[in-house]
């Protein structure tokens, strides 16, 4: 298999790092070589954040440039568009419907670009997931990141891999059931979309 690449993007504090931690652990357990690159520091103060994950038989670069991602998983809508040029021509975007206004928007300097996914859709397959609503229906909005993780795994055709062990080894045990359900709900959301 050629090296695969996914980019997880969102807003500082949204739990992108936990999701990528589960994802990379699952890939490692499955025997792949894995590299993951995250950015800490200043950006975490509510700024735009991204984590890159790459896996395959032998992975060299932890980093990709524009036009090289098989998938972008966006925890926030506008962030999907910010990073869209990282997608390879046949790359897929999996996007949470959540809208979080950034400072210039809150200050009234510009509107939230609500229809921003339309442009993305013209070039790429784009799967929108109501991750917030799904997480809420499972009883805890906080598991939104694992809903999205399930959606990503399904979109990559890797939904059937053993993710349970990775989730079990990463989340606190009292949240295990919730997160397992969240993962499956994310998968189901993508399957529903695909038909």
């Amino acid at each position: 298999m050629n090296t695969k690449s996914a980019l997880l993007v969102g807003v500082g504090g949204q739990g992108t790092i936990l999701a990528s931690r589960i994802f990379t652990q699952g890939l490692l357990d499955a025997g792949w070589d894995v590299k993951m690159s995250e950015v800490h520091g200043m950006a975490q103060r509510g700024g735009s954040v991204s984590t890159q994950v790459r896996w395959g038989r032998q992975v060299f670069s932890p980093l990709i440039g524009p036009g090289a991602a098989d998938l972008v998983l966006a925890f926030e809508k506008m962030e999907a568009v910010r990073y869209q040029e990282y997608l390879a021509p046949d790359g897929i975007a999996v996007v949470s419907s959540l809208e979080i206004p950034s400072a210039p928007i809150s200050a009234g300097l510009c509107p939230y670009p609500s229809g921003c996914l339309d442009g993305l859709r013209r070039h790429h397959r784009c799967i929108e997931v109501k991750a917030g609503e799904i997480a809420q229906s499972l009883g805890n909005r906080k598991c939104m990141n694992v809903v999205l993780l399930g959606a990503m795994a399904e979109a990559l055709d890797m939904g059937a891999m053993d993710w349970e062990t990775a989730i079990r080894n990463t989340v606190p045990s009292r949240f295990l059931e919730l997160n397992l359900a969240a993962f499956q709900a994310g998968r189901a959301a993508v399957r529903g979309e695909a038909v």
Partner: protein
Amino acid sequence: MKRYLMSGNEAIARGAYEAGIQVCSAYPGTPSTEILENLPQYRDVLYSEWAPNEKVAAEMAYGASIAGARSLCAMKHVGLNVAADPIFSAAYNGVGGAYIVVTADDPSMHSSQNEQDNRHYARAAKIAMVEPSDSQECLDFVKAACWISEEFDIPVLFRTTTRISHSKSPVVLGEREEVSLRPFQRKTGKYVAIPANAARNHPKLEENLRRLEAYGNTCSLNRMEIHGSRIGVIAASTAYQYAREAFPADTSFLKLGLTNPLPMDLIRRFAGMVEELYVIEELDDFMEQQIRAAGIACKGKEQTGKLYELNPQLLRQRIFGEEPGGCAPEEPVPSRPPALCPGCPHRGFFYTMAQHPDLLVSGDIGCYTLGASEPLNAMDSALCMGGGFTVAMGMAKALEFSGSPHRKVFGVLGDSTFFHSGMTGAAEILYNQGQVVPVILDNSITGMTGHQDNPGTGRTLQGDMAAKISIEKVLEAYGYEKILVVDPQDLSAMGQAVEEAADSTVPTAIVARRPCLLIPGRKIQKSLCQVDPQVCIGCRKCGKAGCPAISFRDKKAQIDPAQCVGCTVCAQICPVHAISKEDCE
């Protein structure tokens, strides 16, 4: 063999443990911070600490080396500027136990004020340098660096970049090698850096470097990967990984791990094996310049450029002219800059300064640098840690000549920065009598880098209780006559303190004290501010505080309950009292 997914920093910490290192010191700084954060787990066999600054860390670790222990200090790239003095002289003295200096550079400035290339320090200071290219090498190279340091009697610069320190890749662990302390002996000629000794030690250092270069020509840290004779690439660190992916499969590589001194014989041999030679490196042409100077033809920088991080697609584009495949957004996406958190204690201070355009603000590096961004826009300069007080002093002295209408300059820095390098500035202001008010924004933690303890917090890295140094007692001992301790979240008290200090004719300092909300383990009573839309007149004054929880819809302010912590800064600003606070359970 079990593989663990580890960041480079975690692997360096593990490497320190396995290499038998006994003493480690650091001052936090992205992307180096997690190295020390991962060491207290080994406290039974390895002492680790946060030093007040990088110079202290480098000196402290060097002392441990003289006393016979293997030691390590760590810092971000700009930290090495602070620590440079002891390291340049330690090169002449040589080491007792191994002495490793980790520098974590930040190409692309993800979290830094510049992207300086610290490889130059290895050459300038005449010390060895190793550069790992993934997490496994981070672990292995600590052991190799210890051996080099002791074998060649030389400090070793261990250089990473953000993508080495913060990328995770699989690592296989080893066992700790117990290294017994080399018995301490007084060696005045070696360890006392006076001119006569330095004059004797310099030729020894040059000889050690010569031996080290010869070692580099054959050692396993530098290896050839021969796949063809058409193109050859010389690379180290993360640039090697990018090049492996960007160049065609028949490209041969000279992958370097020991990069100072450069193994010139090996490089010459490799150059002779290929038709076309590239040197691929991020930032400066550190290797390329030396290789060209040795008379070996090569290319690289002209195509790759000296700015920012590289990646495989960028290399393909710049070297082979391949256009990247991605398509940019059709409409520009609104920016999402970082901002002071909701409830951040720094907000009240900067909001207050924003109301005083007659006062200049010389800022510093920390979370509070965000006071410079819109809409607060309350800072005139920020240079480097400690510069807040001293740059203010220069501004004030210059303004005295210009007849400027500015009343005073407020020099602003945080508690961690005060202990790092602010205290000397506080002395400068008093000694040379500047029209400067030193302000310490004391949020009782080193916030920007992820909440590390410092000499003012009463705790150590290893989790022990410690002396809590009082900032106001330090200022008092210096001779500040008025020290105004104020809660920055109380806007009227903050405003009064600023006015009083601005008008004061005696040396006056401000300590704006309120702990950061994000200090781990800190219990906060959750409360919430709410806007009464009937009362709100849509004047947007509350928005001037730059709180991420506040937005405006239909000409009314609204507060996001998921973000608000009830700090009430917006409520205090509101001219019509439309915002009220409620406690939640």
